[in-house]
């Protein structure tokens, strides 16, 4: 059986060796050749479809059509490591329902997702943070569509012997832990927030991401919003994907590296995508939200953060420190990146149907994996974005 395959390569050797830089132009060349070869056929097909009274059923979105593609297509994607547990499951299930579409996803990190889609070496990218205007301008294949595909949270996980329930932490205390001014678990700052809990006399080993990351960006945003001392220490109030306090504690690669370190080191504390914390059975801190209550990450508290995103867009994507008593303050949407103009229309149709399924039926698996289902307004945004996909001749691939 040919099932969905995860590309388990570590991102670094891939990024370092020249084949990738060579692959860019080569892939562009290949795409151009393919486009030249079949451009006329696909254009005439579209014309025929537009001319007839009923559009071809292959080009409809929605639950009734979302898994039916006729041509066998392999879609290669790369990007966020945080979404990998979710993608792994939904891509596998999609392939079970529609064996014609095979998806390979390389969870090498959001920034790899951005650069790979810019160079056109993948069919889709994924990033925890939408692409900036300058990143979009650097894309080689024209307009990029950004589709919100999941809603996740960043857990503050720790491994302290005897501490098996959530402790309460606020922004300034977290900032102190990550800037090195709080070095012991029984520090008065932590004890003051947690009366009645016996904290051990144990050194804090703070672990952060060594590579640039979505979770790092979200936590940086939360600390900038809530801890003035953090802004002073890092000297900026613009969040960064590269962890700004790299010379405190230790850095590990990807969520998996941070999770491995937390699970095997007593006294450690770090941040990982909630899906990874759930997989590893970590104890997570309850974080003070903007309403002043301490909330631990759960499907419900992350969904509460997503519900606040009533005007979500790729330029207004921040769901950190949102309002609501039950809201988990460090949440984010993950964004899939595709080119609007698909030179190969069967690839474009397969992409549209896949992600239509991911943002609708696929969401029912989100909760068990540590993500919250997308709010309905975000599903609408995702679907209307998918409808903007075009064939090589500039005609829409999907009927509206």
């Amino acid at each position, binding site marked *: 059986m040919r099932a969905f395959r995860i590309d388990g390569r*570590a*991102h*670094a*050797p891939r*990024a*370092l060796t020249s084949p990738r830089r060579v692959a860019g132009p080569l892939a562009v060349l290949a795409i151009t050749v393919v486009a030249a070869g079949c451009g006329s056929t696909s254009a005439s097909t579209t014309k025929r479809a537009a001319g007839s009274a009923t559009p071809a059923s292959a080009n409809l979105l929605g639950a009734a059509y979302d898994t039916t593609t006729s041509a066998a297509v392999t879609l290669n994607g790369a990007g966020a490591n945080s979404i990998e547990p979710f993608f792994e499951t939904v891509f596998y299930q999609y392939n079970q329902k529609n064996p014609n579409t095979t998806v390979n996803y390389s969870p*090498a*990190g959001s*920034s*790899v997702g951005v*650069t790979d889609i810019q160079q056109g070496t993948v069919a889709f990218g994924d990033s925890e943070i939408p692409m900036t205007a*300058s990143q979009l301008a*650097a894309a080689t294949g024209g307009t990029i569509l950004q589709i919100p595909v999941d809603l996740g949270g960043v857990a503050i996980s720790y491994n302290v012997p005897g501490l098996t329930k959530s402790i309460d932490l606020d922004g300034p205390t977290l900032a102190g832990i990550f800037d090195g001014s709080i070095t012991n678990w029984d520090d008065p700052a932590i004890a003051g927030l947690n009366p009645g809990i016996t904290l051990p006399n144990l*050194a804090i*080993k703070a672990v952060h991401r*060594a*590579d*640039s990351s979505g979770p790092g960006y979200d936590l940086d945003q939360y600390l900038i919003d809530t801890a003035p001392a953090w802004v002073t220490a*890092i*000297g*900026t109030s613009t969040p*960064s*994907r*590269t*962890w*700004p306090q*790299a*010379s*405190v*504690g*230790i*850095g*590990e*690669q990807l969520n998996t*590296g941070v999770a*491995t*370190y937390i699970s*095997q*080191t*007593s006294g450690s504390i770090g941040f990982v995508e909630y899906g990874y914390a759930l997989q590893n059975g970590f104890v997570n801190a309850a974080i003070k939200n903007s309403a002043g209550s301490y909330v631990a990450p759960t499907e419900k508290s992350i969904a509460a953060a997503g519900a606040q995103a009533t005007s979500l867009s790729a330029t207004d994507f921040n769901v950190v420190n949102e309002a609501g008593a039950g809201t988990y303050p460090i949440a984010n949407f993950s964004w899939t990146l595709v080119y609007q103009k698909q030179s190969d229309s069967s690839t474009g149709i397969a992409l549209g149907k896949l992600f239509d399924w991911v943002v609708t039926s696929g969401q029912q698996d989100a909760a068990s994996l540590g993500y919250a289902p997308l709010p309905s307004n975000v599903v609408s945004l995702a679907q209307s974005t998918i409808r903007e996909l075009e064939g090589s001749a500039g005609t829409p691939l999907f009927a509206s």
Partner: protein
Amino acid sequence: MIYEPGPMGPDAVSGLVGPGRVSGVRGALRRRRSRLGDHAYSALRWAGAGLFGAVALGLLVGVGSDSSAALQHSGIGFIWSGTWNPAAGQYGAGILVVDTLLTTAVAMVLMVPIGLGTAIFLSELAPRWLSGPLSTLIGLLAAVPSIVVGLWGLLVLTPIFANQVEPFLASVPALGWLFRGEAYGPSILLASVVLAVMTLPTMVSLSRTAFGGVPVADREAALALGATRWQVVRRAVFPAARAGVSAAVTLAVGRALGESIAVAMVIGNRPAIPESLTTPGATLGSAIVNQFAEASPGLGTSSVIALGAVLLLLTVAVNAGGQALLRSGSGAPAHTAGALR
């Protein structure tokens, strides 16, 4: 191999004896064919040398041009400026250079004595039934990819270092200052141990080959003069194999300097001045691994490539320095070293 040195076959005989024996058309054909082979061989040699030169030149030009933006921004001070903090747009390779040299030096201090000892044991002392299988095993170890060694360091060694090794070293009287600081696990020391493990098999098999290349007559002569087993190794075998051993060390140093993935997994990735050997650090290679994907176009990418250029320069400098040191302090007879090189 162009000539098959087999004892049989008319071609070999005619090739060796020359055209005098074979006359007429057949002989002429043979001669032309063999000259054609010579030409092909010569062309192949030049092509090989040219290709190698082109690749090296291409690498230099590519790295140089891609890193020019970073060097224009920070000047030559990029090499020793101390702050590497891409989040704040501060790019300097100084601390990374220090940590790279430190991890390599510690790795070599740990590895070279063990590697040499093992090679001497295998080539001079071990019984044949042991040295054969052991050499094969070491050859296999040399083929283990660095990421596997890195994973082993991350999953197996890190907790042992955090909970046992580092606290123990810090408590050793008189040496504690070398190992002070919080026991995180990932550290310069752990990275050095991983590098030592990684470079050991190459060191052993190359040195063993060098020792094996010393003529038996040299050993017999030393024994005849009344040398003990140790004296034979010390006075006869080692000096003659010196060039080969130094080549082995050079290779090991090169690999340790440039190793990226495995080091990034176990060093803790902290670009700060190391307090001791057990504090986390960051090398040029590990910083490249962690930052390249960031690729904020322009200065960020250029600075990471500039790290590669610094690494290239560092490797060349360390190798040249090592060669110079070896030549100046060399007690080995020139002809032996030359013969083995």
